[in-house]
């Protein structure tokens, strides 16, 4: 009698830990994320082509703060009715470790990548923030004395004379606290299904407000761990997640996995990142994706923990 009960408890415990979406197993794991500061810029241009071009340059070299100064990506497209000047545009989120980091990075990136791009204008996307970093008030000196400012509805804008007329930029940009490092690990039985699932997951978040995926195409193929056997290297390949090292290290991959991809998600708050992870996981769960997990650092580094079984319940 006692043996029967013990077996039943073990089976029940296993069943409770097992979650599936279709044929895809959702691992009982969690992602570990960090508090960072973020700013939102609204970039407009004469059409989507120039807007996309400007944003592509502005968010370049902005994948991870492991070696980049910030993490940046387009948040979503904005229709002309949503932008301050009624032109096509998009919003960009940019995350940094501190307000000081953003204060250095944003004006430099804007000066080199937005000011230089034809027809662009730049506005603040966090009007109510108390913490602010200089943007227009920094870039105005490029006007070399020919710049003008205009105050409309208590906001100051700077007008810099350039070759195609004027570059318009708002004087300052608001900064808020955000969450960076939400993560999913998509494990597939072949390369094509892995890539397809990763892209579908990224597409599902393309227009979700408050969220960016800063890595190339939103996907990471080089998941990392903290530290290295080499002095001075802050991060190195996450060998436990490399399918080709299965015979040499203790793997954390599902036995059927041949290819894996990570999605790293930064968001404006904890709830938004959790919702984004859930949406992406549901989009990725499909044929050929044997499991979806979440890499972490043992729960010791990040302030925020996103347990997959909780966010997908």
């Amino acid at each position: 009698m006692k043996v029967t009960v013990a077996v039943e408890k073990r089976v029940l415990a296993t069943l409770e830990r097992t979650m599936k979406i279709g044929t895809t197993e959702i691992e009982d794991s969690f992602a570990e994320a960090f508090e960072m500061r973020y700013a939102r810029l609204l970039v407009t241009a004469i059409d989507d082509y120039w807007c996309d071009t400007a944003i592509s340059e502005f968010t370049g070299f902005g994948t991870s703060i492991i070696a980049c100064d910030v993490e940046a990506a387009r948040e979503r497209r904005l229709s002309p009715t949503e932008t301050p000047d009624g032109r096509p545009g998009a919003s960009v989120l940019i995350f940094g470790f501190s307000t000081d980091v953003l204060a250095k990075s944003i004006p430099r990136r804007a000066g080199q990548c937005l000011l230089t791009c034809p027809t662009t204008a730049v506005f603040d996307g966090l009007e109510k923030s108390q913490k602010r970093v200089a943007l227009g008030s920094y870039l105005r000196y490029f006007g070399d004395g020919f710049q003008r400012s205009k105050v409309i509805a208590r906001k100051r804008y700077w007008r810099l004379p350039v070759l195609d007329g004027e570059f318009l930029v708002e004087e300052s940009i608001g900064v808020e606290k955000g969450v960076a490092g939400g993560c999913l690990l998509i494990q597939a039985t072949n390369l094509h299904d892995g890539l397809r699932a990763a892209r579908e997951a990224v597409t599902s978040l393309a227009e979700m407000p408050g969220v960016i995926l800063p890595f190339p195409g939103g996907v990471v193929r080089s998941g990392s761990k903290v530290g290295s056997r080499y002095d001075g290297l802050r991060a190195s390949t996450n060998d436990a997640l490399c399918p080709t090292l299965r015979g040499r290290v203790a793997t954390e991959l599902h036995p059927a996995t041949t290819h894996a991809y990570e999605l790293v998600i930064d968001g404006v708050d904890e709830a938004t990142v959790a919702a984004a992870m859930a949406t992406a996981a549901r989009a990725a769960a499909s044929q050929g994706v044997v499991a979806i997990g979440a890499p972490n650092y043992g729960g010791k580094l990040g302030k925020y923990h996103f347990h997959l079984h909780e966010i997908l319940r």
Partner: protein
Amino acid sequence: MPLDELAATRIRCGRRSYALGEIFSIEMKTDQRELSLHIPGSSRYRSLAAGMTDGMLEVDGHAGELVGCGMRGGILRVHGPTGNFAGAAMAGGQLIVDGDTGDTAGGPCPGELRGMTGGELIIFGKSGAYVGARQRGGVIAVGRSVAECPGYQMLAGTLLVCQGELIAPGFGMGRGTIIGFDATPRPLPTFCRDGLVGPVVLRLLWRRLTQLDFTLPKGIDDSLFLSFSGDLLGGHRGELLYRHHG
């Protein structure tokens, strides 16, 4: 501010001062979120709502001279005309005039040097001479025509005139922007022609004015303007923008 405190506020009337409650009846409707005061109009008013900082005041008729002078906040709505010096030296808030104003709207108070420095002065009718004189900030929009010397010695801010010609606009201006929708480009000889421009900043201005129920011509977003910079006698950093037709 409690109603009894408001009623006890002293105001000048001629050589004497009176408590507000001695002249007006004041009531607050409970369904309103902000205090809104309605008073009848009179051309004998002087300095009505001077230094206003908050709330809403509506004048049903003529608002007299110096209405809203030095106001720093709140909304002052005049359902009629005003005398001279409407919005003189205002620093914030909104002064909206449904009728015409006299001379020197948005300019300095008599005997002073500093004109309007902030806020929004919206005139749906005509305005007199020297509108925006020595303006140092804020936005003035005139729905109809103005008399001579708009933006006289302007130092900053924006002045928009929707109808009629501009006579000696921006005389002695240092900075700031004067925009004429209907005017034939006839700037003073001390202004230099810059060419056709379509500044994106004007789109922000149109949107703000539309929020204030100011009517703008159709297709204004895509309009080009003939730009002149000057005044060479002032700081030479002001701009005149004449809407380009055809």
